[in-house]
């Protein structure tokens, strides 16, 4: 088993710099990196095939190379807002190995000629802010942060910044808006953050897990990283397996591992001896799939081909006692609650969907409402200001597509309970 991110993760006191250095060759990558030019480092990350682990899966090195030329200062914003339902991998990294992230951020900053980095953590991660602040202080004390790092002339400050409860701030432009002290509403793109990001300056926004993969790449070479995984999906991925499994947890897998293995081998199979009914492979924003597709390899391309996405790497498992409409309603409530309200289709559509799904669950639904739901989704998809609107329709559309009988059952029960003609 290849462990890059979770290597020795449960070592006691790994959060302290000393233990981190002893256990994991901590901060050893810096020397190697500083021997290279920033551009060489960017090329190295490109060659590794590392892709953004936050959800979009955009090639990391390429993202770095898009920074507006010769515009300074530049910023790094680490996305530690982890708020995609089903996802809890970054929390484990932050909680257990903060120095790995700091090391990754130093490497990224050196490669991108950045002198200020922020870690935007969701407000609920209050406990880990303290932990992270302590780790940052240790790194300053050791000369890994601050002025003239290791005599290279390279300066870097890293700060934590706490959110305050808004899912949308996980979207990179909303994260920057929030970091600037505004309502966390997404911004128009273009310009992309690489051109006009934080404070209007070129900015790299990377997820915790993405940045945590960088030290390995620098230390062991791009090839070592690229050797793991599939042809196009390189490296390892943390997958949060939750729901109806015996051993829910975060597992680090080489990309391309069959999904069914994640459920059966890693997470100990379906609980209570039940059968797998459905799974959402990449967090609540991606379409769910039926059990029949469980052998799909867990990588970007294969999941895309199967009609869904890898997303943030959150595998939510539902057994055959589940009526998926109930879960669709749960997520509809979530998206209604988290819609920022800026754009009309998302603000109005998420609420309307919630109203209809509530009726269906409450056995007040009408057969034509299923079609209406589909059409509302069509009117929202790719027409909203930001991807939240697209995300909101994914569970609804896919649940209707794969499990129409779950809807029919709830609506049919209406017919059986009420005399014909009463409606």
């Amino acid at each position, binding site marked *: 088993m290849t462990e890059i991110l979770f290597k020795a993760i449960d070592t006691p006191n790994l959060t302290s710099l000393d233990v981190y250095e002893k256990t994991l060759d901590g901060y050893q990558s810096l020397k190697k990196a500083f021997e290279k030019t920033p551009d060489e480092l960017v090329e190295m990350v490109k060659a590794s095939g590392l892709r953004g682990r936050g959800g979009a899966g955009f090639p990391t090195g390429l993202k770095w190379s898009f920074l507006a030329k010769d515009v300074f200062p530049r910023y790094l914003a680490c996305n530690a807002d982890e708020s995609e339902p089903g996802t809890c991998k970054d929390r484990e990294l932050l909680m257990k190995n903060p120095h790995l992230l700091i090391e990754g951020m130093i490497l990224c900053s050196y490669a991108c000629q950045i002198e200020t980095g922020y870690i935007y953590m969701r407000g609920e991660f209050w406990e880990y802010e303290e932990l992270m602040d302590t780790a940052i202080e240790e790194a300053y004390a050791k000369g890994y942060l601050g002025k003239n790092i290791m005599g290279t002339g390279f300066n870097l400050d890293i700060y934590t910044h706490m959110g305050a409860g808004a899912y949308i701030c996980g979207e990179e432009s909303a994260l920057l808006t929030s970091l600037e002290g505004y309502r966390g509403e997404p911004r128009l793109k273009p310009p992309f953050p690489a051109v006009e990001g934080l404070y209007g300056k070129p900015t790299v926004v990377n997820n915790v897990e993405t940045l945590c993969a960088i030290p390995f790449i620098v230390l062991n070479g791009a090839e070592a990283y690229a050797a793991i995984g599939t042809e196009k999906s390189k490296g390892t991925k943390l997958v949060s397996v939750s729901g109806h499994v015996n051993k829910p947890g975060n597992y680090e897998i080489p990309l391309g591992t069959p999904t069914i293995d994640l459920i059966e081998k890693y997470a100990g199979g379906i609980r209570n001896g039940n059968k797998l009914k459905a799974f959402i492979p990449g967090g609540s924003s991606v379409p769910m799939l039926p059990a029949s597709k469980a052998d799909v390899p867990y990588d970007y391309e294969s999941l895309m081909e199967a009609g869904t996405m890898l997303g943030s790497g959150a595998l939510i498992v539902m057994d055959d006692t589940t009526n998926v409409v109930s879960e669709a309603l749960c997520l509809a409530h979530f998206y*209604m609650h988290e819609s*920022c*309200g800026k754009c009309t289709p998302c603000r109005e559509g998420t609420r309307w969907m919630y109203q209809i799904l509530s009726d269906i669950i409450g056995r007040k639904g009408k057969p034509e409402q299923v079609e209406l739901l589909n059409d509302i989704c069509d*009117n929202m998809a790719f*027409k*909203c200001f930001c991807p939240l609107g697209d995300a909101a329709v994914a569970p609804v559309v896919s649940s209707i597509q794969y499990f129409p009988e779950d809807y029919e059952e709830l609506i049919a029960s209406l017919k059986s309970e009420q005399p014909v003609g009463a409606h």
Partner: protein
Amino acid sequence: MDTATQTDTVTLTIDGKTVTVPKGTVVVDAAKTVDIEIPVFCYHEKLGPFGCCRMCLVEVEKMPKMTTACTLTVGEGMVVKTNTEKVEKAQKGVLEFTLLNHPLDCPVCDKGGECPLQDNTFKFGPPDTRMDYNRFNRDKATPLSPVITIDRERCIACQRCTRYSDIIEKDQALVMRNRGFQNRVSTFNDQPYDTRFSGNVIDICPVGALTNTDFRFTARSWDLTNSSTLCGHCACNCNMTLGARLNEMKRITTRPNDLVDDGWICDKARWGYDFTKSKNRIAQPRKQGQVVAIQDACSEVVVSLKKIVEAHGPNSVGFIGSGYGLNEDLYSYQKLFREHIGTNNIDHKTYVDTPGLPVTHFDLLDVETSDLVVLIASDPTEELPILDLRLKKAVERQGTEMIVLNDQQTLMDKYAALSVRYNIGSDGALLAGLNAVLQGQSAGSDLESATGVASSQLQLVAEKIKTAGKVCVIYNPAALTGSAIHTLKQCLATAGGLAETAVGAIPAAPVTNAMGAMDMGVLPDCYPGGVPLSNSDAIKAKWGDTAPLEKGWSALEMIEKARSGELKALVVYRSNPVVDFPGGRNVEEALGKLDLLVVHDIMETETAKLAQVVLPSNGPGFDEGTTTNIGGRVQLRTKGLTTDNPADWKIVSMIAKELGQETAPKDVHAITAEIAEKVGGYQEIKRSAIRKEGKNRAVVPSSNGATASEEIATGDGLILRIADVLFSHDKILDAESNLAHQFQPSTVHLHASDANGLGVQEGDEVSVSGNGHEVKAEVRISNRCNPGGAVLPKVSDEQDVMSLAEAGKAISRVTIKK
């Protein structure tokens, strides 16, 4: 190779039509140029792209998803489609979402008939809704302020109003609260939204969520008679539409003219027209307190004037006009006094000023194309509100830098790269110092002791002026003391001579047509078109051999001559010297000594009470003619209401006729034409030429007076500065005004060090005395002026603050007692 990238235009195709537009244009605006309507709600060209309502989705070739045309900048060769099946479905979908929680109370909605939501639904919407649930329950018709009503159910959260508050007003007073479908437009802690420009949100609201409380349920929009007119309050002369029904003013709305108002009006323009229906109007002519026919009143004026001229000569008669009159009325009056009385005792102001500029007269648009604005003694926020918005735009969005030189703190300081605060009354010394520095000389060793400003600061100002490519100087002559205006013009001349800098100026006297009054020669020492008395040949050529050439008395001199008995008769037009002239109540006594006082005004005033003959003036709303704004732009003010009373020029013409004028102008246009013929600079000002967006009058010759050396008299007490206030409780904004909530208490602003010395504290009720008068005021320790000064905002006529000022003195002192 690629010529397209080297030009400033972009060519694209929209629905098969080829469109060429300037680079940077958004697709929505590009489509308009070929009459393709892409529906919008949130987009407003003055607010820029936002993209939240999603109404303007279009398909663009090579783009995988539909995109919003309001956020999409045109690209060379771009192919846009606005009428495909996909687009139509999206439009129907978005409208269905928009209408989900919007009540269909159009029959009782004030926006009905002029509602973008109605119109877009009519053109692009679904025939029906599939919504089965009750609307989200929100507050109906609650006050957002005393003048604006908000209907939260109708709000579609387009954020136009909140973005206006943020981007245009720069106040962030109106914001979005909460998120998701719970979001709503709000103010802090639900306090009233009562800024100076709040009413514009009514005009830009694309639904009936924000409505004009005064207008609610008083008329349907389609029943209004709308006239394109101008605001008659400040000297910006914003364009506006007056909506009337059955000859009663119902509402005022914006009528965008980018060259003047940039599409906005202030709240005084919107709600300051109640005087058109006020009980306090001078409804009919009066003679010795008795209502008479207008002909009788005019005859009385003529008979009395003739008698006085016969007995005491033409110079025993005078005319005090004002910048509130139209060009045609002012022109007629000065002509009457020069041609038929034979005197130059003609004036319209109480401060020193001379016509023309030694540099280019900049228009309002130049403010935002300048690299540097130098704002001198001007408080646009209170005096010329639309200029305030223009300056904020220039500084915040156009990259203009601003320097403020003032004796008092203003809201403009926040936007200034440099604020220079000089002692009250030291403007002449400061400007002399600046002139010296601009000429490369020393500002003088006593600059700092005289003005409170270090010479290094003036060096910085001069450096910025010298290094900026285009400099716009904006100054308020009415706020300068003594003859400081002459020094200012010397400064302008010096700056105008700088090799690397293009310098222009905007004389920003606050009164509606102050510029026109100067141009029309309502001056004791200049004929129309800025022709000085010394230029007798030119005067005789135009005005005949009998044209008087002896310098007349200024307005303030006329008051003093009335007191001394040398002036026997005075015609006061649209002016209230008893309240508005320095000396205030002292003027009352002087006017009481006249044999004849004629007051021609809109509203009953303290001065009108003293008059033997009172003539009604119709004023804005009713009158028609031209005004010249601070940018030198001449525009047409048309009438929106009618009255049986004759127009002001007509009354002048009736008097002139009895005094022997043979031909009377047929109508007001005949006078406009005569002005074009007779007034230098106005040759091109034809009714047809100015109808749409006005026209700049040409250069008026510049003249300048000699600077008197005025030392700041030492003495007891603090130096008085009377400041203008936009919403002053006067005759125009009376107690019944919709804007009464904006009236302020009488306050005196002190520097902390002076307050300390006087032993007064914030909020103390004090008596401010000077010139034999006393004014009650509440203390504000605001450091608004340098130590040694006291700023009293002129908040009402009743406050009587002008009585504290000594007429004819550059500075006045006041003492403050608890």
